């Protein structure tokens, strides 16, 4: 198989102090959204909505798992793990994660992310848009338990809600 050019590693984050001594380590949310939605436009045009969403979900999964493995690490308790994830998402200004309900026996969780990086403030479009976040959350949960989860966004800023709500269940 041909050697891949962009297999993810934290090398792709790089040394930001060295690389951006003047502009620093921050940019605006608009820049992030410009990138994401431009990419989604092209992916959808070339591959169709369903396939584009699948790709975005997988990318989110990869990112969530990598972030959790690097910054959260191992925790004995699921709730301690979620607390740590919550703090990291706050520190990185990704969103405000909250747990609405958690059934540890059935492994069903209902999470909300307020001020979500992907969608908060977007106009009402009649459908949820946070496909990347769905994958991200699945990746985060996989990093904790090694299990696969299905994550589905059931409420979104783009459906007129004021917070994104995700349902997490074992795959």
């Amino acid at each position, binding site marked *: 198989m041909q050697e891949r050019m962009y297999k993810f590693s934290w090398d792709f984050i790089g040394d930001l102090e060295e690389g951006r001594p003047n502009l620093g380590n921050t940019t605006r949310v608009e820049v992030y959204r410009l990138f994401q939605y431009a990419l989604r436009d092209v992916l959808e045009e070339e591959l169709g909505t369903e396939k584009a969403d699948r790709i975005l979900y997988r990318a989110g999964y990869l990112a969530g798992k990598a972030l959790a493995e690097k910054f959260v690490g191992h925790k004995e308790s699921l709730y301690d793990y979620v607390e740590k994830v919550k703090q990291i998402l706050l520190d990185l200004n990704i969103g405000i994660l909250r747990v609405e309900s958690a059934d540890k026996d059935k492994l069903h969780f209902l999470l909300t992310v307020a001020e979500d990086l992907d969608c908060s403030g977007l106009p009402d479009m009649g459908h949820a848009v946070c496909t990347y976040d769905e994958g991200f959350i699945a990746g985060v949960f996989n990093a904790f338990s090694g299990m696969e989860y299905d994550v589905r966004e059931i409420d979104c800023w783009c459906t*007129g809600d004021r917070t994104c709500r995700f349902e997490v269940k074992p795959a």
Partner: protein
Amino acid sequence: MEETTNPSAVATAASAPEVDAPSVCDSEYIARLVRHLYSIVGLSNYKIKDLPEEFACIRNARELHNMLWSIREMAAALATGELEFASGERGFTMGSLKAFQSNLRHLTWQAQRIAAGEYQHRVSFLGDFSVAFNQMAEQLAGRIATLVHETEEYKDMSFKDGLTGVYNRKAFSQLAKKFLSHEANPSGSGVLVMCDIDHFKKINDTYGHLCGDEVLRAFAGRLTAALRPTDLCFRYGGEEFVLVMPNTLIKQGYSATERLRAAVEAMRVEFENCRLQITASFGLTEFKFCTADSDPEAYLVQCLQRADANLYRAKESGRNRVVADAG
């Protein structure tokens, strides 16, 4: 639940109505429609759940009717603290109510975690809720920590001898089983020492009980200073002390006790204008944890009896000496 129309379409319809109904210019008709819609959100005992047929021809009227009913029911559920009400309606107002419901559910979950003893949970970005909840959690965590600390202190006090600060006889009974555990005795054996200040009654009679107390304190201090961190010292009686040396062979225990005897003999107890020299007698015995499997307390009593017998032999043979099990 009926699928809702795209809210944008509703907004569009509301701004530029295109109605097929012949009564579109009939102000009474409009007034009835408005009254009906107002009643959904305004009247507490309004029960018309289905859109009256006369309004069915107005585009999006049914959707608006359904949305208002959902908003009404959601608001009523929230008002009574019922957090499970689900609605498929979308849009700004329902979205805001759902966000409110979500926040209450989150607060409920946080409260349940704290009730389970996870006092580290805090709530953020929920305005006054956050402030009050977090204050409560912090106060609770602080008080629990204080309570635990005080409980440990009281427990400790109840196990400690008030005069000398070493463990008391009650503690010996409670801790007995631990001496015989594999964790305390990986080598499988230990040494139990019973010791006693020589002529203590005479010290009390000659110098008074306050001096006697000072002697006891000094003696206990000398004992504990010489012990390892894993060894234990108990005040078993008036001037009687028991030492427990886990994971120690009898020969090692004997040597250590002999050094203790010499240290006691060498020390001087100062009290008022007096400088007293004291001596003590020591009786040793060995204990093995595996032997105590069936009845550890009874086994320890036997060990105490053997140590006591050796102490008696030490006293009988001149005091200020260490006697171990024969052979």
